[in-house]
Every structure is written in structure tokens, then in C-alpha cells.
């Protein structure tokens, strides 16, 4: 299973803070997971997830570009951070 989290404006646009995706090889990378989310969610999800400057994190680490996923991973989608 993959745990998928959304934060801030991404969460609001999707009206979704978290969901779980059963693990299989069709979601064994960040890009393929994102495609699955868009396929299941529709145009609204495409708009929200393909935004410029989207940040993706795997197991609490920000990731640049695509990245392999394995069963049990936690994936997060969020906009550029603005703390401090």
C-alpha cells in the first residue's frame, strides 16, 4: 500500500488531505503514481497535480524528478514551502 498526502493549496484544490493506494507494480514510481491519481481523479486532479513548482516527497524527503516507489512508502504532494 502507498500512503499519499496533500498539503496547503494542493489539499484545498483536491479537497483531499490523504488517501491510500493499494500497492502494485503499476504504481512503482512517483510519475506512475501521479498518472494513476489523475486517471482516477479527473481533470481537476490533473490541473492541481501538474502545477508548476509542485514539490513531491517520498518518506519525508523532497525528491527532484521521478523516483522509484515500494510497498509501504509515504508520498506527499505540496506547493513550495513558506515557513520561517
Amino acid at each position: 500500500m502507498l500512503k499519499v498526502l496533500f498539503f496547503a493549496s494542493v489539499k484545498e484544490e483536491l479537497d483531499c488531505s490523504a488517501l491510500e493506494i493499494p500497492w502494485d507494480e503499476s504504481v512503482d514510481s512517483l510519475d506512475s503514481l501521479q498518472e494513476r491519481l489523475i486517471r482516477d481523479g479527473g481533470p481537476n486532479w490533473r490541473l492541481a497535480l501538474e502545477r508548476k513548482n509542485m514539490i513531491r516527497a517520498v518518506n519525508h524527503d523532497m525528491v527532484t524528478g521521478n523516483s522509484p516507489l515500494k510497498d509501504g512508502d509515504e508520498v506527499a504532494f505540496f506547493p513550495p514551502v513558506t515557513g520561517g
Partner: protein
Amino acid sequence: MNNLSVSVQTEDFDAACLQRELLSASHEEGAVVAFTGYVRSENIGQCVNNLLLEHYPGMTERSILAILSQAAERWPIVAASVVHRVGPLGVGDQIVWVGVSSEHREVAFSACEFVMDYLKNEAPFWKKESTAKGDRWVEARATDAERARRWSG
């Protein structure tokens, strides 16, 4: 290292208290540089009424500790501490405190600024402002990314 500490909390903090906790029992440090961030009354020309700070529990603490560890590898700091608030905040409220102690001031200044520059770019917090024109998510400043980059190289 156990002289690095991180707290993510809804409660306010007392800077003097945090600074006393930072100090070593052996009085090695000659310098402490402390940064405090506040909610400003105005941002990008609009009046701010209040702020909501969202974060990514777990990743927040981990990323800040990673930043402090990098600072400790890079400079001979004695101790470093970050307290970051989350949840609803009002104008003038304290948001974040970063304290760094070291033998000499150069190290404390550099390490404290490094931690803030990285925190601004790597710690998963998001600010939502409430203004007269409605709520809006604060956008990241391009200069923040630049400032973090100048430490590499």
C-alpha cells in the same frame, strides 16, 4: 549530537527561556545569535489580519533536524535550537526562533543565517493569510531559493 533541538508547537515561546536552555553548563560559548520571525501587519501591500500555519507532521521535525546537523558539520557550533509554531497566529505573534551558540560570533551568525535560509526552503510549513480581500496562501519568495543556494559552493 544531543545539543541540537527542534520543537514544532502551537504554543507561544519565551526567547529568553530558550536562550538560557541553549547555554552550556561549561560556559564554552562566547556568542549566541538568535533569530525571531514575526507575523507582519502587511505583506505584499495588503493588511494581514491573521495567519494559519500548516505543516507536514513528522517531515517537519526531521527536515529541521537535518538542517541543524548540516550546520553542525559545517561550523564548530556549541548548540543550536529551532522552535517553530503552527496553527492560528495573529499579527505581531512570534512564528519561529532559531538560536545558535558558539565560541566566536562569526560562526554563530553564519550558522544561524544558514539554518533560516534552509528552513525557508526545506521545512514543510505553509502560511495562509487572512486579508480584507479574503484568504490566500503566501507564495514562496524567489529570493529565498537564491539565498539557500549561496551556501553551496
